[in-house]
C-alpha cells in the first residue's frame, strides 16, 4: 500500500516587542528568574490586562506578509486549563476571531513552487517556564505574558522535507520583518506538527498524531520522518492509528505517546471580558503595509538582476536579512563588474566560518570594507585563495585588518619565476612518477605537483604561475 503524507504545522513565535503582551514588563531573555514580573503577568487578584499595541501591529504585519485576510474586528478569548506555569489558570488567546486567516506561503520544494495554505494567525500570551529539580519544581515567570503569535498552516505539506522548507522560508521572512528573534534554542520559535497518512489519492484524511518537543527544524523533519515510518508500518500491518499527542525524544530519535484524544482537555473558551473588541482600520493596515521591508524573494530577484548572481547564490545570500544587507554592501562596493570572486568567497569561506560558529555572518564581526580589502589581494593575485581563507580566519579571531595580517606574516605570494625556479626544479626531480603521469595525460598529476611547490613555499607561491612554469619545464625536459 502506498500512502500520501499529510502534514500541518503550528508555529509559535515570541514577538520581539520591548514589553509583554498585556503589561509593561521587559521581555529581555536570560535575566534572573522572576525579575521581570508584575501583578498583571503574575495574574494577581484584581490585576487587568492592557494590550500592547505593538504586538498587534507586528501580528498584522505577519498576517499581511502571509497574504492573510486581516479581520476588521478581532477579540481575545480565555483558554482555561490548570497548570502551574499559567498563573491565571487561563491563557489569553484568540479563538473564533483570529487576527488573520486564509493566507499562504510559497515554498520551493524539489525545484517546484508549492503553495502552503495558512489557516490562521493569532495573538496569545506565553506561559512561564517550569524548572524541575530533584525534590520539587519551581517556576520562572519572566517569560510569562510575552506576546506569542501562533501561525497555523493548512494540512498542505506533503513530506518532512517540505515541512523543513516551510519552516526555513517562514523563518527567513519573519527575520526580515524583524518581529522576532526566531531562535529555537531560546524558545522564541517553537513548532508542533500534525501528521497523518492516507491511501494514495484518497480524499479522506487519516487519523493524525500531534508531535511536540522538537527543538530545531532538523528535529521537526526527523520526528516527522520517524512518525511517517511508524504510521506506515502500523497501517501496512493492519493496525490502526489512534489520535494522540506524541513527544519527540531527541536522544532516542523516536516519538512516544504523551496523551490520547480521550484525555484531551476541554478548554472552555469564552470571550475575554477584560479586553474590548479591537477594530482594525483600513488606515492602520495601510500604514503597516507600507512599513513592510523588501522580502527575501524580492531581494533575491534583485541580486540576480543587479549583480548577475545565480538563483542558488542569491538564495543563500538572502536567507537572513542582516546577512543580505551585508552581502548587498559588499556587492555594491565591489569594484569589478564580475562578482564571481566575491560571491564564491561569501558563500564559501565566509559562510562556513559563520556555520562553524553557529551564527550569522554579521555576527563574525567583520565589516564589508574589511572583507573587500582582503579580496583586493586575492583579485590582484597577491595572495592565493588558500591564504585568503587563512587570513579571513585570522581577521575574525584577532579583529586585525587584512593588510596588517598579510604584511606581518609576509604572505604576499611569489609570482617571480626566477624565485620559484629552483623549487620547481626540485619538485620535478623528486616526483618522477607524477611527471610521467602528467605526460601520459593525467591532469591531476599536475595539480599534485603544484601542491608540492606550494608546500615548499609555505603556500606563498602563486599557483597559476607555478602551473605555467611546471608545464613549460615538463614540456621542455
Amino acid at each position, binding site marked *: 500500500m502506498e500512502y500520501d503524507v499529510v502534514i500541518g504545522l503550528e508555529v509559535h513565535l515570541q514577538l520581539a516587542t520591548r514589553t509583554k503582551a498585556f503589561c509593561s514588563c521587559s521581555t529581555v531573555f536570560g535575566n534572573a528568574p522572576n525579575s521581570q514580573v508584575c501583578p498583571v503577568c503574575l495574574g494577581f487578584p484584581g490585576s487587568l490586562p492592557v494590550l500592547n499595541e505593538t504586538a498587534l501591529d507586528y501580528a498584522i504585519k505577519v498576517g499581511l506578509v502571509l497574504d492573510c485576510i486581516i479581520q476588521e474586528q478581532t477579540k481575545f478569548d480565555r483558554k*482555561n486549563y490548570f497548570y502551574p506555569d499559567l498563573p491565571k489558570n487561563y491563557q489569553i488567546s484568540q479563538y473564533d476571531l483570529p487576527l488573520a486567516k486564509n493566507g499562504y506561503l510559497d515554498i520551493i520544494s524539489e525545484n517546484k513552487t508549492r503553495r502552503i495554505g495558512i489557516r490562521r494567525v493569532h495573538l496569545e500570551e506565553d506561559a512561564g517556564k517550569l524548572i524541575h529539580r530533584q525534590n520539587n519544581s519551581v517556576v520562572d515567570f519572566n517569560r510569562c505574558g510575552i506576546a506569542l503569535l501562533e501561525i497555523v498552516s493548512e494540512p498542505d505539506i506533503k513530506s518532512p522535507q517540505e515541512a523543513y522548507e516551510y519552516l526555513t522560508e517562514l523563518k527567513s521572512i519573519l527575520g526580515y520583518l524583524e518581529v522576532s528573534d526566531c531562535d529555537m534554542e531560546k524558545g522564541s520559535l517553537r513548532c508542533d506538527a500534525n501528521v497523518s497518512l492516507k491511501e494514495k489519492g484518497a480524499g479522506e484524511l487519516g487519523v493524525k498524531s500531534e508531535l511536540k518537543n522538537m527543538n530545531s527544524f532538523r528535529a521537526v523533519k526527523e520526528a516527522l520522518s520517524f512518525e511517517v515510518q511508524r504510521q506506515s508500518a502500523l497501517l501496512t500491518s493492519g493496525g490502526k492509528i489512534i489520535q494522540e499527542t506524541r513527544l519527540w525524544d531527541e536522544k532516542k530519535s523516536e516519538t512516544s505517546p504523551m496523551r490520547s484524544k480521550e484525555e484531551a482537555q476541554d478548554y*472552555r*473558551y469564552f470571550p475575554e471580558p477584560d479586553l474590548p473588541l479591537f477594530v482594525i482600520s483600513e488606515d492602520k493596515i495601510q500604514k503597516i503595509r507600507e512599513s513592510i521591508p523588501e522580502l527575501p524573494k524580492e531581494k533575491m530577484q534583485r541580486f540576480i538582476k543587479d549583480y548577475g548572481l545565480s538563483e542558488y547564490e542569491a538564495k543563500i545570500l538572502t536567507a537572513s536579512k542582516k546577512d543580505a544587507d551585508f552581502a548587498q554592501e559588499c556587492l555594491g562596493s565591489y569594484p569589478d563588474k564580475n562578482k564571481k570572486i566575491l560571491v564564491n568567497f561569501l558563500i564559501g569561506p565566509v559562510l562556513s566560518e559563520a556555520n562553524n560558529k553557529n551564527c550569522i555572518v554579521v555576527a563574525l564581526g567583520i565589516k564589508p570594507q574589511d572583507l573587500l580589502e582582503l579580496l583586493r589581494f586575492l583579485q590582484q593575485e597577491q595572495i592565493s585563495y588558500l591564504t585568503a581563507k587563512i587570513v579571513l580566519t585570522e581577521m575574525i579571531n584577532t579583529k586585525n585588518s587584512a593588510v596588517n595580517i598579510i604584511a606581518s606574516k609576509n604572505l604576499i605570494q611569489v609570482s617571480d619565476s626566477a624565485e620559484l625556479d629552483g623549487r620547481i626544479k626540485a619538485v620535478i626531480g623528486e616526483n618522477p612518477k607524477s611527471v610521467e603521469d602528467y605526460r601520459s595525460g593525467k591532469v591531476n598529476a599536475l595539480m599534485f605537483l603544484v601542491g608540492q611547490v606550494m608546500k615548499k613555499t609555505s603556500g606563498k607561491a602563486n599557483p597559476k604561475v607555478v602551473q605555467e612554469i611546471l608545464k613549460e619545464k615538463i614540456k621542455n625536459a
Partner: protein
Amino acid sequence: MELNTQAAHQLSNLLKEGQINSQDIVDALYRRIKATESRVCAYVRLKDTSLPKLGYPQDGVLSGIPVAIKDNICTEGLVTQCCSRILEGFRPPYDATVIRKLKKEGAVILTPKTNMDEFAFGSSTENSFFGPTHNPWDLRCVPGGSSGGSAAAVAADEAILALGSDTGGSIRQPAAFCGVVGMKPTYGRVSRYGLIAFASSLDQIGPFAKDVEDAALLMNVISGYDSNDSTSVNVSVPDYSMSLTNDVKGIKIGIPKEYFIEGMDPEVKKIVQEAIDKLKQFGAEYREVSLPHTEYAVPVYYIIATAEASSNLARFDGVQYGLRTLANSPSGQLMEMYKKTRGDGFGAEAKRRIMLGTFVLSHGYYDAYYLRALKVRTLIKQDFDKVFADFDCIITPTTPTPAFKIGEKVKDPLKMYLSDVYTISANLAGIPAISIPCGFTKQGLPVGLQILAKPFAEEMLFRVAYTYEQNTNWHTAKPKV
C-alpha cells in the same frame, strides 16, 4: 454631636474650619465600632489591624475623611481576602485604582475591611468565611449582600463612607436593606483595576453613603478613565455636586410594569408608589413602560456571571499566594494540591458557582447556555435603550421585599437569587442605578427606591435622588443598635 454620625460633607466643613481634625473622626468611629461591632459584625479581621495612616494631602476633596473598604478591593500591604479562606493572609502588592484616587484626595483608608459574601457570591453576607453581618435595623435580619458589611457599617455609623462592588445588585440591595444610599455606576465609569473579579463584564465599584450629596462626593473621586483597565471608558467626568439641584420639573420617569408583579411585598409596593407620587408632586411626570425581557434577567445573569467567575477564580490554586493544602502522598502531588487547596479554601456557594460556570462553558453546552445568554443580554439592553429614548429615568423598588431573616434563605439558593431580581438588569445592561431610602415597613425595616438611567447619566440619578431626599427625611433616621 458624635462625629461618626455625620456625613462627609458636614465633616469636611468642620475640618476646614479647624474645629476638628481627622484623628477625632477616626477616634469617634473606633469608639462606635467598639460599642456596636460585636452585634453588627460589619468589619472583618478587626483585631489584627493597626490604626489607619493619617496625613495624606490636606487639600483633597476627601481630606481627613475615613472610608471603609470592601474586602475585595486591593489595598497595598493590607490583607484583602474577599472574605474567603482561600486568600488567607493575602497582602496585595498594590493599591486598586480607586484606593489610589482616594489617597490622592486625602481620604483615610480604614484598616479593618468590610464583610461580604465570599467573592461577592450572595445577597445576604451570610456566605462570608468570617460569619454573617447583622442588619443594624434588626439584628435578626441580614444586611443584604454581597456588600453587606459596607452597608451595615454606614447604617450603624461605624463608617462615614464606604466602597462596595455591585455585580448583580451587591451595592443597591444592601443599601436598600440597611437604609443608606448606594450607587452602581455605569459599567466603565469607575476603574475595576484592583477589584478582585467576580464577573468581569458586570462588576463595578460604587459608593455607600449616608446621603446623596456624599455619594456624589465619593463618585467625583473614584470615577474616570484608567489606562490600567481596558474596559473603563474615556468619557469626561462631570462634577456630580453640580447635579444636586432640588428640581425634577419635567423629568420623565418610566415605571416598568414587569417590576410591580404579584408576589412582591405589598408594603414595599405601597411605599415605592408613594415615593413616585412624591416626585410627581415636585413636577416630574411618570408613565408605565415595559421592559419585556425582564423575566430572563436572573437566568441570564446566573449563566454569564458564573461562567466568568469560574474562570476568574481559577487562579486561586495554592501556587503563588493564599491557602495551600499539600498533598498527603508524593504521587500525583500537583493535582492533589489543587484539589485539596480549592476544596478547603472555597465555601459552598463559591463551589456551586464555579461548577455552574464550568458547566455552561463546557464543550457541547456553550452554545445552548453561554452564547444564548449573551444574546438575551443584548435584548435586555435594547429594552432599556428603547425606554430611555423617551424617558429620563426608570424607577423601581430596589428589592421585592425588605431584609429577610438570617438563615431564612441559605438552604434555598434559588430563592436567594430572586432577591436580586430588580437589580440584576442594570448590570446586564451596563447602566447606572442608585438606591435611596424611601420609607420603612411597619416592622421598622428600611425600603429602597431604585432609580436607573442611561449609560453615563449618573447626573440624572443624583438630581432625582437629591430632590427626593431634600423633601423627605428617611435618610436621617438612625437604627438603635
